[in-house]
């Protein structure tokens, strides 16, 4: 009883936080009060006021407009990156778990090698080689995150292989690809859903980190990481430059964590 009430609370708080980001995302798609890169040397470092809700930065750009626009890229990178990781992770994880043997060993050695590098370093190397662009960031992050999904899929597949319904499908001589994707995959949702949500949160952190280092989303596009990088010299004199992008990131990531907590407790029947 108590646990279900608690998990509902997670859902409400998480959804409220995500709703804020969603509103920013939708408004950012259709309208921003000022151009996101339009500079105005007359209005540098204006503190939050009625005209500039989140203030302005060192070039006189409106922080509110930039926060609206950055939501678009943050969501795009996190969702597209998770989609790439999910597709690669699903295929490799199912193959490794289903066939075992040499296929499993090769896939696991590869994914372990990726996982033993610090993820951000690997993504940075990939972007440094292929050039910093939005799509390269998505690919690089997708590759870095794929082993996490592959592992979840692999272990859950191995667990399901002994179930009678999978044995029965094998006896019926169902095609292995069909067994993997139609018989096994739908049963992995309880494990994969929380992993996807946590993946979205981690992906956002990685993207912000890369943008902060200048290798993520490239100007003229706005990104929270880039905004934080630009603002660090003015942290004391213009704290709002740090505060609002950080607030947006916290809303998004915390919201995802809360929702994932709810998913975990409700999908897995409350098991910890």
């Amino acid at each position: 009883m108590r646990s279900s009430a608690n998990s509902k609370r997670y859902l409400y708080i998480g959804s409220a936080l995500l709703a804020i980001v969603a509103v920013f995302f939708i408004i950012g798609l259709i309208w921003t009060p000022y151009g996101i890169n339009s500079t105005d040397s007359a209005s540098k470092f204006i503190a939050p006021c009625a005209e500039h809700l989140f203030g302005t930065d060192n070039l006189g750009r409106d922080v509110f407009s930039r926060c609206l626009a950055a939501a678009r890229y943050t969501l795009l990178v996190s969702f597209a990156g998770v989609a790439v990781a999910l597709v690669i992770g699903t295929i490799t994880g199912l193959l490794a778990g289903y066939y075992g043997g040499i296929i499993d060993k090769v896939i696991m050695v590869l994914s372990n090698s990726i996982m033993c590098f610090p993820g951000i370093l690997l993504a940075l190397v990939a972007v440094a080689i292929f050039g910093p662009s939005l799509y390269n960031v998505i690919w690089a992050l997708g590759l870095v995150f794929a082993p996490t999904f592959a592992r979840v899929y692999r272990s859950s597949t191995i667990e399901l292989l002994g179930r009678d319904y999978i044995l029965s499908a094998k006896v019926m001589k169902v095609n292995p690809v069909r067994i993997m994707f139609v018989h096994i995959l739908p049963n992995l949702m309880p494990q994969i859903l929380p992993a996807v949500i946590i993946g979205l949160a981690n992906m956002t952190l990685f993207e912000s980190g890369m943008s902060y280092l200048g290798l993520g989303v490239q100007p003229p596009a706005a990104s929270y990481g880039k905004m934080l990088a630009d603002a660090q010299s003015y942290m004391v004199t213009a704290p709002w430059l740090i505060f609002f992008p950080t607030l947006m990131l916290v809303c998004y990531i915390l919201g995802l964590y809360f929702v994932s907590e709810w998913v975990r407790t409700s999908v897995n029947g409350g098991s910890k």
Partner: protein
Amino acid sequence: MRYKGNILEVNDLCLSLSNADGAPVKILNNLKFNVRSGEILGLIGDSGSGKTMTALAVSGLLSDFAHVDSGEIIFEGEDLVKKTPKERRLLLGEKIGVIFQDPSSALDPLQTVESNLSEIISIRDGDKSKGHERILNMLKTVGFDDPKQIAKRYPHRLSGGQRQRVLIAGAALMNPSLLIADEPTSSLDTVTSMSIMQLLHEMCQEMGISILFISHNLNTVRNFCDRVMVMKEGTIIDADTSWDIMGQPKSAFTAELLMKSKLDPHALGITRGEARENAASVLTAKSICAGYKYAGFTNDKMNHVVNNVDFDILEGECVGLIGSSGCGKTTLVKSILGLIKPSSGIIEMNGRIAAVFQDPVSSLNPAHTVRWHLAEALRASGRKMTREEQKPYFLKILEDVGLEGKHLNRFPHQMSGGQRQKAAIAMCLVQEPAVIIADEPFSALDASSQASVIKLLSDINANRGTTMLIVSHNLLVIKAMCSKVLVMDKGRIVESGNTDEVLENPKAEATHALLKAGKYAV
């Protein structure tokens, strides 16, 4: 000193569970019974009748979703319902011991048997230093010949029966006044379950422990319990000494349960599947060897579980395969089904083969409806039908297996164990196989479902002429259904032939052992 009189009295206990919407569903309805000091009380009933809920309510292990609405549970003169959760936890183990159905999940896999048991001693005495001798003695008491070896082993190196013995040893170390055994033998084979029952009986007599023994099998409780209660829909409908309840059941339900558990072929209308005249063979195995590889230090080693097995099954025949657990039955079945590759030998098949497995919980894919399962079987058989043609065909198949049209769009979790097993059989029928191999298809079902699934398979054999290979450790099932029987022991077929001849005039030692165990605890 043991408590004198009724050690446990349950008076007018009502218990409900909250369903997904939070609405209460009544599970136990004015339940009333008592356990006398030093007796074994059997509690039987179909699955879903509230047996396990009774055990959980008495032991204080109810989940958050269950609550006692009214009534009292008086244990050694004190009402447990009024006690706080902390007080009840203190009673658990010390005064009330519990053994569950699944021995594989009840021991810590990372600790040896001795550490598992010394944990119990340290909880009771706060000191595990003097435990070693006591553990070895207790392991000897529960029937291990070499307790020192067993104490050093990890749970995965024990068989199901050995694990259950270790759990019983654990419960006995606490020396409780009341031991609740919730279907402790239903996952074990006949020989092992008989020895577990004997062990519990001895413990009851020597240590004076009262036992509440829960089972869905009337035959199991018959020989070992002093009194038996029959439960239906959360109420006790019949209670008497086990002799009387078997001889003169008071309620119609008990009589029916008794009839079903005896598996009388005439009463159930079962005929033995005989081969037709001049029947061709549909399944032939020639010197099959099969087993499992395990990784050695330098190269993989092969552990042969099945050695040189030969048999021949004729069209329309119903053949039984029996043997104690671990003798290689399942490995043989898996190699016939193509699930593992035999290391040598030839399997010749004339037609499609379909399988029904043991566990009704995992026999159907939880992510899909019954309709999807039937469509998948149809697809696998290579026949093509439009969606419009499929529906009447599936409804007909469901009717044949004793399910209704409404089950077509149900998910597995919306059906009972027996219904799921019938849906799995429906999948077999859709494939129109020449042979159906059923690996212990009844052992996880309660007496009523068991009887109806046996009748169903027998009817399929009689009406459709489908050949059957039934793997079971229940000799009554084999006697009722099969015209031929294969007895397996240590990976070999040690005896085969006409069922009556083999079972009435056994030659192999393994057959003798199975028959002896079957007499007590089928």
